[in-house]
């Protein structure tokens, strides 16, 4: 128990230092980026804005102050729990993130579970049927997918299911032209299917290939040979010794893949104009919305860190070999 507390304290220290470093680096990068936030905010109306008005806007947002002072200002209000106000949405950053995150969360959870389960099963089938046709098909499928960009996959699905077959809506999170209170759960689900499918299809390759490789290693191990010598065979053998041993690395890997999931979501949401975190990130980046972008960077770092932490915790708690190392 004491070990776990120590483990968590160590991880939290690491998280804090990570967040500090990340916010400083992001801030420096943004302050050097060629995008002028005022111009990005005003857009086409730029011609009608005089230099005085510009200065007023800059004054209002505090953009005329040196970057260090801006950062200090932002950082101290962050410590009080204030993420600042988004320039483009004109809403508190925390509010935007929580709203967008809920949209993305549904998407990512579905994709994560689907790709995990399908990938794991495909990996096991491929390893057991190694070099048979089933393995070849799965391998071919995975290599193809692994080299497929997410946005391209999204476009293909969009073309097939939304444009040609017209089964599913073409994009967005809810139907266009419908009042918010009239949007049904079915509508939301219908809009979720394609982006979630895109993300899951692409995510399968990684976990399937990893599971396959790991299980092949296990199947050629000495303990499988001995189990065979004891008369175990077929499904019992795979179930008792194969799956038990392959599931831990597979689960760990899948938790550690949160970063890829997030990265994939950015692209998929962009293709489907799905109003999630990913789309907000792209918007914030392109239009120089520093508070929102910083908020998103911090949030996504925590998200990915949480994934890695869970991966560590699971192997820390479940794997008996790790337990032994703990007590040493």
């Amino acid at each position: 128990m004491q070990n776990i507390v120590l483990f968590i304290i160590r991880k939290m220290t690491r998280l804090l230092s990570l967040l500090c470093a990340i916010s400083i680096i992001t801030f420096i990068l943004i302050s050097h980026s060629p995008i002028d936030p005022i111009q990005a905010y005003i857009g086409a109306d730029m011609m009608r804005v005089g230099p005085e008005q510009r200065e007023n806007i800059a004054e209002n947002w505090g953009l005329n102050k040196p970057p260090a002072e801006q950062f200090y200002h932002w950082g101290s209000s962050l410590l009080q729990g204030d993420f600042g106000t988004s320039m483009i949405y004109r809403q508190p950053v925390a509010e935007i993130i929580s709203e967008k995150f809920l949209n993305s969360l549904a998407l990512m959870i579905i994709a994560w579970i689907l790709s995990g389960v399908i990938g794991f099963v495909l990996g096991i089938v491929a390893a057991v049927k190694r070099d048979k046709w089933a393995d070849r098909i799965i391998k071919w499928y995975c290599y193809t997918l692994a080299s497929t960009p997410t946005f391209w996959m999204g476009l293909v699905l969009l073309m097939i299911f939304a444009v040609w077959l017209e089964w599913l809506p073409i994009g967005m999170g809810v139907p266009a032209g419908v009042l918010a209170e009239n949007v049904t759960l079915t509508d939301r689900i219908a809009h979720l299917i394609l982006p979630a499918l895109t993300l899951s299809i692409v995510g399968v390759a990684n976990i399937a290939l990893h599971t396959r490789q790991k299980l092949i290693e296990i199947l050629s191990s000495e303990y499988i040979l001995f189990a065979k010598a004891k008369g175990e065979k077929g499904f019992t053998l795979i179930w008792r010794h194969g799956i038990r041993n392959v599931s831990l690395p597979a689960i760990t890997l899948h938790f550690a893949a949160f970063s890829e999931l997030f990265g994939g979501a950015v692209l998929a949401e962009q293709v489907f104009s799905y109003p999630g975190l990913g789309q907000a990130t792209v918007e914030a980046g392109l239009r120089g919305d520093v508070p929102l972008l910083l908020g998103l960077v911090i949030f996504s770092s925590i998200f990915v860190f949480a994934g890695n932490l869970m991966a560590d915790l699971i192997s820390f708690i479940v794997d008996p070999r790790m337990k032994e190392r703990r007590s040493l």
Partner: protein
Amino acid sequence: MSILEVQNLSISFKKYSKGLRQEQNQVIHNLNVSINRGEIVAVVGSSGSGKSLLAHAILGILPGNATVTGNIFYEGQLLTEQRKEELRGTEIVIIPQSVKFLDPLMKIGSQVQTSVRKRNAVTAQKKIFEKYKLHPTVEKLFPFQLSGGMARRVLVSMAVVSEASVIIADEPTPGLDMEVIKEAENSFRELADNGSGVMIITHDIEFALKVADKIAVFYAGTTVETAPVSDFSGKGENLRHPYTKALWRALPQNEFIPIKGSQPLANDMPAGCPFAPRCEQATSECSEGLPEERYIRDGMVRCIYAT
């Protein structure tokens, strides 16, 4: 009648040499060995000479690229691949070399229980643990937590609970202290006394001489001599094959004379007797094909000059 008899066993592996050229690499050739009920036979040979393959061939768990010829009989009945599959784990069991052969994520207790065939698994496991002085808490341990001696007892207990008639122990002694080795000796003797046939595959000739009734000397992929353990005495006058004699004389407590040269590799075998290049008595006739088996004084030998 022997409980297990291996006749003319040859094992070769398909191997790709340069590019796509396939090569058959024969690792074991025309090997003969037999075990009776209540008998301990030690197959003695140097490390890395492919002795373990003999065990794997008997159990039918060789890898897919292996080709096996020759016959194996269990109680006089030919072992087909299907029959091997039925018998392994029930009538023929193996005691592996180390805990690496145990599932790393499965508790010792349940692993021993999976070896039980005929009785209640849990009670059988508890009983055998008591017998081998394994504390009940060992049940809950994982393989990596076992000490060397504990591991050995666990591995032997798995063979015992299976109540098999043929027990093959693969390298049972490396890295163990004298006390544990003594324990292993006793457990093998006990298994044999209960009517099983025990085959010990080892490089440890001293251990083999202490525990076995019959020694089969394995050299370059075949058995060059099979002799009762009593023949290993004095200056080795009763031994039949020059290699066995040299081996006996090389022991520290005897003359401590090393044998010159080394065993030929599987892909570089001499045409005739595999020992001829190192043999002092070798003549040109020795390189004309592998010597036939001859039965002399209650033992077998593959040497044309043996008396």
